[in-house]
């Protein structure tokens, strides 16, 4: 039996699938925070045009800043010759952003819990926690050098509610 995942929304599968289609854009930039902020602002600006609310924008800014900063500082170790690649797609319903660096990657499963009493005094190590808290989905690549963030538009009207995923069985 084959399973195919379709995106199903309140107006029916076909329309929702069409609406979920957005253009993927790619930005590649050197490991400089100013460049990271430029790309972050570009993405947020497009989200404003798609009527994302203040709460969504706060969440996106926070998560983007953490992901891009991690890529520059921890992934590329601020090496001038190494780039960060940001691939993103924005629709009225959702934003997907992939942030990739040229580092060796890391295993998010072995990160210490920053909320544990013994770690509260640590001055770093909260980025992944915040990304997971504020995004609807956070996926690290197996190599650990890229992360994909997904945020639904919580400000959409009821007819534009986030797409749900339906599994349809064939055969």
């Amino acid at each position: 039996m084959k399973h195919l995942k379709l995106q199903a929304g309140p107006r029916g599968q076909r329309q929702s699938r069409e609406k979920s289609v957005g253009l993927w854009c790619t930005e590649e930039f050197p490991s400089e925070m100013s460049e990271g902020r430029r790309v972050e602002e570009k993405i947020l600006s497009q989200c404003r045009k798609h009527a994302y609310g203040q709460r969504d924008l706060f969440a996106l800014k926070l998560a983007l800043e953490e992901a891009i900063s991690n890529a520059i500082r921890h992934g590329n170790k601020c090496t001038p010759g190494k780039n960060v690649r940001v691939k993103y797609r924005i629709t009225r319903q959702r934003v997907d952003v992939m942030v990739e660096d040229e580092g060796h990657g890391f295993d998010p499963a072995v990160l210490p819990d920053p909320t544990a009493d013994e770690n509260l005094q640590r001055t770093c190590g909260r980025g992944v926690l915040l990304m997971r808290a504020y995004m609807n989905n956070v996926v690290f690549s197996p190599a650990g050098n890229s992360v994909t963030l997904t945020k639904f538009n919580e400000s959409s009207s009821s007819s534009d509610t986030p797409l749900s995923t339906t599994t349809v069985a064939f055969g």
Partner: protein
Amino acid sequence: MQQDAARLKVTREGDIVQVEFTSRKILDEGNIAEIGDQLSVLVEAEHRPRLIISFAGVDHLSSAALGTLITINNKVKNRDGQLRLCNISPQIYEVFLITKLNTLFHIYPTVKEALESLRSGSQAGRLK
């Protein structure tokens, strides 16, 4: 007495130093290193610093900003001083809750309550 640094507005009430940020984007990733340096200078100028940081008007912060605040808190403690945070918007306070840093920092709703806690030593009104 009031003195204006580039990014901080500093006022004094007796031996208590109050700091406000001059821009709502002040705790963005790009500004935080400079802010940290300026706060460090303030702390290191005091024998037993009693410092209130107001977040009035601040609408964003990052984990780097949290790290800087922890560094400042440690510097204050190392000099046998006390740090209070106040005027934190609900949206930003949520970040403190998620990271459980509300248990590390002494956070009060307003400057008035933060001042009162430093003067009386009471923790009445402290946000948990």
